[in-house]
């Protein structure tokens, strides 16, 4: 890691008015829940408003000026977002969220019009680290096709246990998370991709927790598919992205069908538009795409290297502060090597909900619960953790407040 780049945090924070809010306990908000959803800068809100007040029209339909401007804004948005994640424009499909993106891939990979479709006797591989959104779609694909679901268990420090599973020719899909949304562990993408390729399996990357926090280049990562969401990367809700390698998207049948995704339609049958339109049935999320593109440009303006090193500093301070409290147990790597933003922990004798309540009283917003990763929590013998997660706008002062709040929780419930 290079030396930390000094960000102008005062200027950045001014772009997020919500961060100055004083909460019900009388304290200023310390928003440490960006892993659940991030706050949105004025640039994103302004871009949506500007679009809706000047150019709003139906994308890809008709011939009037607003339709042209809307289509241009939508497709320019696709280009800006593709550039942000190292993909080509036509390799990005817009969905309503990352969950839909992962469901889309899992459905089309089980469609027998695809010549590498998952079928009976095949194996789908995932990991014990996954968010439910990258687990249940694969359980369902296995159920629909008669394939078997297998998974890499995790190590005691919350990483994928690479020695626990050997892939063979039956494996058709390997789906895994880039940054765990609980342990913060960063997956060895190159190693997993190389193992999958060696047996002819396709890879699906859940990039929800990585795209907002580090430079991403899907081409360089070599994955076949990737999913991420708009609202976790300073963009709007209601917009998710699926990346797919061009050859694959071109060969896959549609998921949702209807308007916008067709070529010719008769009463008996239809032929389908090329990707990515083939996967975008119905009226698309136009202002959301415009907002998400603004978010990508905003992050690009700061520089993802700078974002990454700033957040690494916050994570290091959080780990150090929490580990100074004897009752704390970190669920995940305790070092900063190959580690992303979420820091999850349990407190001896204090349930995560109660930790969250004490922190809320201090104006500090963290997530409590199983963070949509129940099997992972079960693996560690716990029902719930408290999780602090960061974004570019967070400060070391907020980390100090978190540590002080956790100490208060220990004292309160002692």
């Amino acid at each position, binding site marked *: 890691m290079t030396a930390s780049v000094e960000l102008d945090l005062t200027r950045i924070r001014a772009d997020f008015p919500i961060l100055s809010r004083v909460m*019900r*306990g009388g304290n200023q908000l310390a928003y440490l829940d960006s892993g659940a959803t991030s706050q949105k800068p004025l640039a994103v809100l302004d871009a949506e408003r500007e679009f809706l007040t000047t150019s709003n029209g139906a994308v890809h339909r008709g011939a009037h000026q607003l339709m042209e401007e809307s289509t241009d804004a939508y497709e320019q948005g696709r280009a800006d977002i593709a550039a942000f994640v190292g993909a080509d424009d036509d390799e990005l499909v817009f969905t309503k969220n990352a969950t839909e993106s992962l469901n889309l891939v899992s459905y089309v990979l089980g469609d027998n019009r695809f010549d590498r479709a998952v079928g009976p006797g095949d194996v789908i591989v995932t990991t014990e680290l996954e968010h439910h959104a990258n687990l249940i779609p694969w359980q369902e694909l296995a159920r629909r096709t008669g394939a078997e679901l297998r998974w890499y268990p995790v190590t005691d420090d919350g990483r994928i246990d690479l020695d626990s599973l050997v892939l063979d020719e039956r494996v058709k899909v390997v789906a895994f998370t880039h940054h765990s949304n609980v342990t913060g562990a960063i997956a060895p993408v190159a190693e997993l991709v190389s193992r999958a390729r060696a047996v002819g399996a396709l890879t699906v990357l859940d990039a929800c927790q990585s795209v907002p926090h580090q430079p991403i280049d899907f081409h360089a990562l070599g994955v076949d598919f990737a999913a991420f969401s708009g609202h976790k990367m300073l963009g709007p809700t209601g917009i998710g992205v699926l990346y797919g390698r061009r050859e694959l998207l071109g060969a896959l049948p549609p998921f949702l069908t209807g308007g916008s995704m067709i070529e010719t339609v008769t009463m008996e049958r239809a032929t389908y538009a090329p990707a990515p339109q083939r996967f975008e049935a119905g009226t698309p999320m136009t202002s959301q795409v415009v907002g998400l593109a603004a978010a990508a440009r905003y992050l690009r303006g700061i520089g993802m290297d700078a974002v990454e090193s700033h957040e690494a500093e916050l994570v290091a301070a959080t780990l150090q502060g929490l580990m100074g409290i004897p009752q704390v147990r970190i669920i995940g790597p305790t070092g900063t090597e190959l580690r992303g933003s979420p820091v999850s922990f349990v407190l001896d004798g204090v*349930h*995560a*909900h*109660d930790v969250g*309540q*004490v922190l809320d*009283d201090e104006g500090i917003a963290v997530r*409590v*619960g*199983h963070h949509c990763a*129940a099997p992972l*929590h079960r693996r560690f013998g716990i*029902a*719930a953790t408290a999780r602090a997660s960061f974004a570019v706008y967070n400060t070391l002062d907020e980390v100090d407040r978190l540590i002080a709040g956790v100490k208060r929780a220990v004292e*309160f*419930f002692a």
Partner: protein
Amino acid sequence: MRMEQMYQEVILDHYKHPHHRGLREPFAAQVHHVNPTCGDEVTLRVALSADGETVTDISYDGQGCSISQASTSVLTDQVIGQSVGDALKTVAAFTEMISSRGNIEGDEDVLGDGIAFAGVAKYPARVKCALLGWMAFKAALAEARPMGEGLSDDGQEQR
């Protein structure tokens, strides 16, 4: 300070020293309830008198936050020994108070230590915690008395 209003001393006492905890025999029905948003869970048993009209015991085990654990402890204090009809009235009164967003303070004669949870009602995210054991009890009772009268008298939906 708002937090101390929520975590009344009596709640912390029930949390640290829960009453009637542990699973006991005999029992007429056992249920397992979870709060899917947080993973908290309770296994709860209800025992009835021979004529099926009196709650003779409630025993339970589980894991959860201070609010869910303390409220289950309070449930057992209030309801063990009550007639089924009175027990359902107690459940209805607690449910009404806890779902009121703080507008109903609760009757101590009916709810006992349960009135300490009035502050919890102001935190919608914690209402399910407070109700975990109470809803489990209601379900167990319905299972123990499948044809039982009074189960819908409180205006609550049956399972």
